[in-house]
């Protein structure tokens, strides 16, 4: 394999993985606090629409990012109001958010922009620009993997690096700070946290707030970096894939990162293998691309079944906490 090909595959893996990483971190935070998040898909879609719509109308990158973050936060607060304050069913809420997002983004998109649900293409000023391109150009000429690093790891936009940087940050908060310890305790044994005089509701709302902001980043990545505009249903199941990655990573930020990179790699490889023939030894014929695309979900089910290691959910996951009276 030549260096340009490896670099290209590495680059597309990182590009595909970034929204997955952001969403999976969002899921890690809310689920470790005991709140199931099946609404990742919907949150990402609505925040992507917010970024696309505000970016197109104002022509301002900060405002577009801000809109996505505000919408993500608002959705998470709704999540908290229904499920933490009013002990509503967390699975049902996730389904509701996803359905509302699928419909509402198209309804509003058609009404406001009249382009069949799409938002107008964003000008370059609103899009995230590649960073470290100078370094990449310099490395390009070096032998021994220079082109792999230049083509694969450099020249991405800021959100890619932010997502990678957030993984150790979330790990540090969860495992090395007092808030993180309390958050994890809330997901395992909320009654104990309550008995210690801490607010279970407060901790869960806090986790959800971070969850909403991370979903907002993931949604804005789709519009500001990956595409040039919002397209109906552009998340295309990425929220569920991030959920699968979070489970595959055993509810741990670093585990989730590796899972996201694996799933991203499979996705990038599937796109490249479209229409490629199998080697004669394997009988020829087209590569079953669908099998590669289904692999993340199959792997997650196999892991959940306990056949490769054990993935254990937080003990109080999905159980609303009702203070005893």
């Amino acid at each position, binding site marked *: 394999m030549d260096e340009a090909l490896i670099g290209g595959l590495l680059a597309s893996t990182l590009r595909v993985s970034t929204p997955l990483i952001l969403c999976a971190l969002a899921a890690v935070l809310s689920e470790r606090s005991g709140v199931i998040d099946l609404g990742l898909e919907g949150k990402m879609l609505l925040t992507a629409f917010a970024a696309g719509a505000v970016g197109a109308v104002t022509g301002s990158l900060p405002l577009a990012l801000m809109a996505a973050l505000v919408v993500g936060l608002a959705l998470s607060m709704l999540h908290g109001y*229904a499920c933490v304050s009013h002990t509503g*069913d967390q699975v049902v809420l996730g389904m509701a958010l996803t359905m509302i997002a699928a419909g509402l983004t198209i*309804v509003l998109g058609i009404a406001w922009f009249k382009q069949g*649900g799409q938002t107008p293409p964003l000008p370059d000023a609103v899009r995230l620009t590649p960073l470290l391109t100078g370094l990449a150009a310099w490395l390009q000429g070096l032998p021994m993997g220079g082109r792999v690093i230049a083509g694969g790891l450099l020249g991405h936009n800021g959100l890619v690096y932010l997502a990678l940087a957030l993984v150790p940050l979330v790990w540090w908060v969860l495992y090395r700070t007092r808030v993180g310890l309390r958050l994890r305790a809330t997901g395992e044994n909320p009654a104990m946290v309550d008995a210690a005089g801490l607010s279970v509701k407060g901790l869960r709302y806090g986790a959800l707030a971070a969850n909403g902001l991370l979903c907002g980043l993931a949604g804005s990545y789709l519009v500001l970096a990956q595409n040039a505009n919002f397209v109906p249903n552009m998340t295309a199941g990425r929220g569920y894939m991030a959920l699968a990655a979070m489970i595959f990573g055993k509810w741990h930020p670093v585990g989730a990162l590796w899972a996201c990179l694996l799933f991203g790699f499979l996705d990038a490889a599937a796109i490249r293998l479209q229409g490629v023939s199998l080697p004669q030894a394997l009988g020829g014929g087209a590569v079953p691309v669908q099998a590669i695309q289904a692999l993340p979900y199959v792997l997650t089910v196999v892991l*959940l079944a306990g056949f490769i290691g054990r993935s254990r959910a937080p003990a109080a996951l999905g159980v609303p906490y009702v203070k005893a009276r």
Partner: protein
Amino acid sequence: MSRPAELPRWIDLGLLPLVNLAMALGVCGVVVAVVGLDPLQVLALLLKGAFGSRAGLSYTLYYATTFVFTGLAVAVAFHGGLFNIGGEGQAMIGGLGCSLVALALGNQLPALVLLPLMVAAAMVFGAAWAAVPAALQAWRGSHVVITTIMFNFIASALLAYLLVNLLKDPGSMSIETGPFPQAAQMPGMHLVLAALGLDWPRTPLNLSVLLAAGAALAVTLFLWRTQAGYALRTVGFSPAAAHYAGIPPRRQVVVGMLISGALAGLVGINELAGVQHRLLLDYVMGAGFTGIAVSLIGRNHPLGIVLASLLFGAIYQGGAELAFEIPGFSRDMVTTLQGLIVLFSGAMAQVAAPGLARLYGWLRPAARLQAAPGAASG
């Protein structure tokens, strides 16, 4: 506040769901107004489109048929304490089952033998697709919500692979099989009524609507009139109590999911045998998820599910008509409304309860005074 308020039965079962539904409709009305349309005009046109003509009514019933199947699928699993989100995938694979029978045996068998075989195949395939998550939940403790979501994606990939590589009609550009033979087509309702001497417009409504009614009846009898149904409900109500009573919870998990998957598989009969007459990609189009909304509104009771399916059928048909009548009205408004209904009637079902309890206590002070001494002495 967070404890469910104690309300009379008629408020809890009758008024609260209506209040929740009204809130969902209210928010949807706001969205309609934001989009620049008149909510009342939209509502009037929607009702006219859904019930105003014989054709509209037929379309409403046709949509409702599919929702009865997916709604019952969610409800049966729910009575066993399981949340089956995999109706979408089970319906896809059920459709695959009935299509395989139709394409393989369609030219050899008469319709009277073939159609029941196709129904059986749809149910068996749907149940088989639910069997793996069921077994994993029962014996390996893998949460059925997550595994059924994963199985939706796996089903979609499997169907795409089979259609593209094995089943696709070589002469066709689109990814679909060749047409089913005549014998494998579920007769349309207009043909049945014409045979009875009634003139009825040609619509997708077909005999599957009777199958849906039969399924609702069968589920009612199963849940409340059989030992197996009792066992399933007991496990759903309290797995520990069921265990002490000698009901093995694991077997009930599998039974509940198999029936659930079989019901979801029947979507294939209405959509493929009844209307499309071929197998194609993505034919389920979210009906599995609509089943969740239907089951929530119908309070997991077959009668409620039939009524909720009619409501959703009317919304789908009315929405389709509206998209014709009003430029700028998108059918996706229906998806939005569906999501809002799941939000208010499902996730936030108890939010309005304390308010209603206060209102009830305020309107009926006499009842509260009478109840108070009893509570004090008891």
